[in-house]
């Protein structure tokens, strides 16, 4: 068997997929490090003349009213009296324009440009922290969405301002316990236009008249919901905007002199009322500033900004109200709100334009230095340019101050230019999709899927070629990658690894496709019989068979948010349907029932059936019983699902909460007993299988693991559950012991698991050899120490699974029939080998069984039931596959290879997703089970790698188990082989069942089947990744992109990563067993090795 080509092909395949995912995610997910520092009044900003900066001057305003009208687009705020037939959303807010024209010294209206992603939560983060929030703000804990970065609300609280909030309850989750008073209203139901707004209006005016507030935040959602529901061009929008007009008027009437009013939208909307993307319609909101006392220094002039970036609100508000600018702010102050330098000592007081700019600049520079010390994602050359610019500006400013002359007006504009370029640099790094990278990632993934398909179809040819097809693409891809890197180095001076990888992957893909095309045409020309088969590869008819239709449906379902939300049920539905297809299809081919007496057959027109009717009946019975088991476990697995927040009336499974949280003692005991019973059954079933096939007789490492480590591990786990479920106060005198057990038991379990896996790896053979003393065996001249591979100790089992002639067959194949003269002294073989029939599957099964218990350790106790269902379902799937293979072998469809058809592979990979949900996981970040990181480490961790890997193992437990045990699909039909069924089909008469030894007889077929199985499994997972990547790319403006599609993409991609790694582990284990079996044969029959 050729292990290396299989492994290298698989490895290369995975690598190409990884590059595609990496490239797409690099262009799509915007990542930024959070700086967890806060500004305070006492901060000294470098280079500083003054002792303090932030709270130096007297604040211009004492109070501020922040009216946020969600999705207030700039088009809604403009007023054009000449329009005779305004659209429903036009001219509905006349108050803004009226105020601006009648009181130009008190008010302004600007377009207010948001940064993508234009979703409400990200926008609230944006205009309170002054930073550019991205999808993944690293450092932010996923479990809660609270803002940990420095922000305006925090700063208001620091200086003792009372912040009163009312409206969208997103604020409450972003700023928990930060408000003096808060009146949140549920924001989730998009269909509800009025609850939030009416709730605010009930309290807004009373609060304003009262005196127990300094900052009032009111967030109206009606306009946004109206947009989502009806779109902007709808009478409902006109009503909503008119209502808002009234609100603004009433608020203006109630304002006091030292109060600033800000009316703003957090983002715009498209013509269909959606938002989230980066088009100008979505980013351009409106901002309206008003104060009862004059605050501007003249009517709107030419040098005022055309557009105000959203981040600019933060430093402006901070300096106007006399609080420190939040640490991570990259916005710049709005100059028109500050008096020009000459009028500093005027009546109004406060900071002059230049002073404000100078403080702002120093703060931004401080942030830039801190950030570039933490992360390296800002390009170094722009960083150094910004630094030198700042040095120049500061020396100019300081010298001007020192000499006492007023700085030149150019200085203000160059400070502004500096701030703008900092923001642009940051935005280029954080806040922009990179469409080129996304497209390249999509293309690489698409080609990788195609390549995977071709690889699975051509696996036999590839193995025959001995992996020659791989060498050229790899060499070429390396060359291309290195040359791209060199070119980048020459032209731009630095290397972007992403593009080198992309070029390498892409070139290797293209070359592989071209070579395989050549290869397939050459094979077609060699043996013309295969030609029609090759041609029909990609025809529609070929793709519409159920086994490929279901993955297509699955991929299509990833493009709809409703289906992603209901994914658990959708996948269960698909698995059930596809499983039902198997008996229906078999029946359609007339294979399910024993053929009735047929006149044609008795006339000899049809070949005689290979299986007797009773055997057929038995196989069909097994098939239907396993189908029943499968359906039952599918149905029961539905009761272990968690709930997404989008699913309104959904109750999460009762088994998801850990035992220690259950209050009812009886229920707790019941759960515990159920969990222990399932754990025991899991262990018992595994041992039962090994015992039945005689794998527990020898004394190797694997058998030791099966005999001792497996039961010990489950005992450990059961004890651990018991200990962790005991209430803290029930056994006071045993508290220390309990504490120790909580620490020690899981760690012992981890060690046992590691030891077991290592032992299986070291000595995977489970074969027990029994030599018979034979007269003939003594004579060395007799070259045939024959043996048989029994699977059980009992004589009945021996009779059933006898492998008497395998050695002869090997000899025959090696020595070319030299053995014809060997005398048959005795009909009994000289060597009996117990457990040889399941030599491959036994270690693999034990490996996955142990791994399963280890993964169960990381889950809540109740999930033991779900894991038991997983075991039963895999067993049922394997048996269904085996029975259907046997039944279709009956019609002579058996082609001599060990190829696994699509249907079981599709079922296998869909079941992985199904049990992802049935073990209580969901593709959302809040549903990650963080408790897994503390199993065995109740004190917490120091590093991040260990907890991260524990949580990964917990999250993708079902992916891991299904991927590792994937090669079982190849072995199971051989394990369950009915005596004589294959023998006849192969043409050898009177052959006994040799089970998995068939694989050794035909190593080439074995390798190709293994390669085909793994590539098929990879392809189905890869296609799902491709579909979710497409969903994220196409729907990047969708309302749900950051809530549904982007997390789904992350989970699908990481699931693929974990699956492929563990698939490789499983395949490697099989190859390891193969090597061990080869050595065993050499030891047994020394002359073969010669």
């Amino acid at each position, binding site marked *: 068997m050729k292990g290396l080509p299989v492994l290298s092909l698989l490895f290369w395949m995975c690598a190409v997929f990884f590059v595609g995912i990496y490239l797409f995610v690099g262009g799509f997910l915007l990542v930024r490090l959070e700086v967890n520092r806060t500004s305070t009044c006492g901060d000294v900003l470098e280079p500083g003349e003054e002792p303090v900066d932030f709270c130096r001057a007297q604040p211009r305003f004492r109070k501020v009213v922040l009216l946020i009208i969600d999705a207030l687009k700039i088009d809604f705020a403009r007023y054009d009296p000449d329009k005779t037939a305004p659209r429903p959303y036009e001219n509905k807010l006349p108050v803004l324009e009226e105020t601006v024209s009648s009181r130009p010294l008190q008010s302004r209206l600007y377009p207010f440009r948001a940064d993508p992603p234009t979703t409400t939560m990200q926008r609230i983060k944006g205009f309170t922290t002054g930073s550019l929030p991205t999808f993944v703000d690293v450092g932010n804990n996923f479990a809660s969405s609270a803002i940990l970065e420095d922000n305006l609300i925090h700063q208001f609280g620091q200086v003792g301002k009372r912040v009163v909030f009312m409206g969208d309850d997103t604020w409450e989750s972003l700023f928990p316990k930060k408000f003096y008073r808060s009146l949140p209203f549920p924001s989730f139901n998009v269909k509800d236009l009025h609850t939030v707004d009416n709730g605010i209006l009930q309290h807004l005016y009373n609060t304003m008249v009262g005196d127990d507030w300094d900052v009032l935040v009111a967030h109206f959602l009606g306009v946004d919901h109206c947009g989502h529901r009806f779109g902007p061009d709808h009478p409902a929008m006109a009503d909503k905007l008119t209502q808002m007009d009234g609100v603004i008027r009433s608020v203006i009437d109630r304002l006091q002199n030292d109060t600033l009013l800000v009316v703003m939208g957090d983002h715009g909307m498209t013509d269909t009322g959606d938002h989230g993307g980066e088009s100008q319609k979505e980013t351009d909101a409106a901002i309206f500033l008003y104060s009862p006392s004059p605050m501007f220094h003249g009517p709107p002039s030419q040098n005022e900004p055309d557009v105000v970036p959203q981040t600019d609100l933060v430093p402006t508000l901070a300096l106007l109200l006399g609080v420190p600018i939040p640490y991570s702010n990259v916005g710049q102050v709005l100059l028109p709100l500050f008096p020009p330098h000459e009028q500093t000592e005027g009546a109004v007081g406060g900071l002059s334009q230049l002073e404000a700019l100078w403080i702002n600049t120093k703060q931004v520079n401080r942030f830039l230095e801190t950030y570039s010390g933490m992360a390296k994602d800002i390009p170094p050359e722009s960083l150094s340019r910004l630094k030198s610019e700042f040095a120049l500006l500061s020396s100019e400013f300081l010298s001007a101050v020192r000499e006492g002359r007023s700085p030149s007006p150019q200085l203000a504009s160059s400070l502004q230019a500096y701030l703008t370029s900092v923001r642009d640099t940051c935005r280029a790094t954080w806040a922009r999709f990179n469409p080129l990278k996304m497209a390249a990632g999509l293309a690489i993934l698409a080609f990788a899927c195609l390549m995977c398909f071709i690889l699975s179809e051509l696996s036999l040819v590839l193995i025959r070629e001995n992996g020659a097809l791989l060498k050229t693409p790899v060499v070429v891809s390396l060359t291309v990658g290195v040359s791209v890197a060199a070119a980048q180095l020459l032209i731009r001076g630095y290397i972007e690894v992403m593009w080198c990888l992309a070029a390498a992957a892409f070139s290797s893909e293209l070359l592989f496709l071209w070579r395989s095309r050549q290869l397939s045409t050459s094979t077609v020309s060699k043996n013309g019989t295969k030609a029609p088969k090759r041609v029909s590869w990609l025809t529609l008819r070929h793709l519409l068979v159920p086994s490929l239709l279901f993955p297509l449906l699955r991929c299509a379902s990833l493009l709809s948010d*409703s*289906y992603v939300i209901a994914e658990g049920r959708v996948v269960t539905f698909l698995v059930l349907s596809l499983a039902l297809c198997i008996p229906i299809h078999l*029946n*359609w*081919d007339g294979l399910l*029932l024993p053929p009735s007496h047929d006149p044609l057959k008795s006339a000899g027109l049809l070949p005689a059936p290979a299986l007797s009717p009773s055997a057929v009946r038995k196989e069909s019975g097994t098939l239907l019983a396993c189908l029943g088991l499968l359906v039952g476990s*599918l*149905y029961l697995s539905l009761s272990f699902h968690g709930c997404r927040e989008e699913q309104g009336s959904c109750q999460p499974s009762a088994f998801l909460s850990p035992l220690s949280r259950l209050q009812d003692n009886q229920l707790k005991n019941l759960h515990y007993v159920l969990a222990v019973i399932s754990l025991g059954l899991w262990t018992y079933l595994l041992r039962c299988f090994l015992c039945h096939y005689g794998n527990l007789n020898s004394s190797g490492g694997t058998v030791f693991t099966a005999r001792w480590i497996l039961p010990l591990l489950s005992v450990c786990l059961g004890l651990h559950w018991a200990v962790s479920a005991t209430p803290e106060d029930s056994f006071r005198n045993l508290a220390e012991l309990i504490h120790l057990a909580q620490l020690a038991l899981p760690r012992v379990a981890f060690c046992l698991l590691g030891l077991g896996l290592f032992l299986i790896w070291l000595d995977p053979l489970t074969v027990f050899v029994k030599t018979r003393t034979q007269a003939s065996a003594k004579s060395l001249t007799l070259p045939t120490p024959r043996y048989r591979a029994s699977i059980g100790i009992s004589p009945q089992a021996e009779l059933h699974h006898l492998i008497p002639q395998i050695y002869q067959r090997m000899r025959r194949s090696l020595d070319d029939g030299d053995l014809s003269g060997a005398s048959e002294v005795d009909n009994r073989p000289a060597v009996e080998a117990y457990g040889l029939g399941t030599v491959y599957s036994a270690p693999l099964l034990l490996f996955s069984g142990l791994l399963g218990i280890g993964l169960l350790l990381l889950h809540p106790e109740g999930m033991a039931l779900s894991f038991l269902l997983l075991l039963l379902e895999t067993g049922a799937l394997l048996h269904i596959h085996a029975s259907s293979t046997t039944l279709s072998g009956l019609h002579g469809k058996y082609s001599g290879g060990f190829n696994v058809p699509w249907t079981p592979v599709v079922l296998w990979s869909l079941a992985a997703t199904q049990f992802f949900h049935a073990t209580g996981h969901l593709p959302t970040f809040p549903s990650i089970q963080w408790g897994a990181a503390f199993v065995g480490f109740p004190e917490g961790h120091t590093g991040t790698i260990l907890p991260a890997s524990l949580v990964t193992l917990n999250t993708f437990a079902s992916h891991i188990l299904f991927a590792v045990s994937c090669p079982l699909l190849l072995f199971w039909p051989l394990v369950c082989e009915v005596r004589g069924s294959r023998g006849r089909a192969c043409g050898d008469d009177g052959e006994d069942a040799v089970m998995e030894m068939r694989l050794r007889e035909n190593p080439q077929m074995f390798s190709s089947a293994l390669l085909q199985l793994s590539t098929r499994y990879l392809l189905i997972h890869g296609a799902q990744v491709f579909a979710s990547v497409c969903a994220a790319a196409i729907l990047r403006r969708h309302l749900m992109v950051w809530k549904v599609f982007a997390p789904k993409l992350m989970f699908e991609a990481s699931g693929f990563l974990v699956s492929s790694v563990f698939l490789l582990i499983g395949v490697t284990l099989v190859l390891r067993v193969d090597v061990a079996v080869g050595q065993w044969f050499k030891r047994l029959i020394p002359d073969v090795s010669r």
Partner: protein
Amino acid sequence: MWDHEIRAMASTHAIIAASVFMATVLPAVLVPGFSVYGTHLLWLYSVSAAVTAVSVAVFWLLGITPPAKKHTLGYKLSRLLRSCLYFFLSCLFFHTVVVLYGAPLIESALETFSLAVLLTSLTTLRCLCVLGPNVQAWIRVFSRHGAMSVWDTCLQITVACTLVGAWVGAFPIPLDWDRPWQVWPVSCSFGSLFGYLTGLVAAPAWIHYHRKQLTYKCK
């Protein structure tokens, strides 16, 4: 020789389709407040009853039902009883399958059972009419070489279309469109009925176009 049978089949199907139509229109005229969504179960039962009655009558009149081996009254009666039993068992079977597919177990059991009744009257009833109460024969019919006559082929097509229709009918349920036809089991019963009507049209057409290739073994 088959032209005659195909014509008979087409007219039978036309009659059945007309009965479905009447079962929708007549209650709308007679029963106040009747609507397909609002009083969905009523509509469902009226369609099932109409299809049952018309199919039994038409197939009995046409004489496609396999001839009884004995002509005693007791035997006929037992056959009738067995058919009724099979009908009921098939309702239970479909109910179970639908529940296993994810229908609520307790909450809307009546709706689920009504869907099962509809499915039974669209599929099992036809099997009963064409093949008699003989499960072995039913299983045999759904294989590649199992059809013994034009009517068997027609049975294959209509039953497959109905079941696929019901299956596809489940697809829109998770979508968040809030339409009245997404309520359980409206979309599934629509799907199965559309599938059935498609099958009624498709079966004669398919047989007509493939009449040259079709060969049947005699029993």
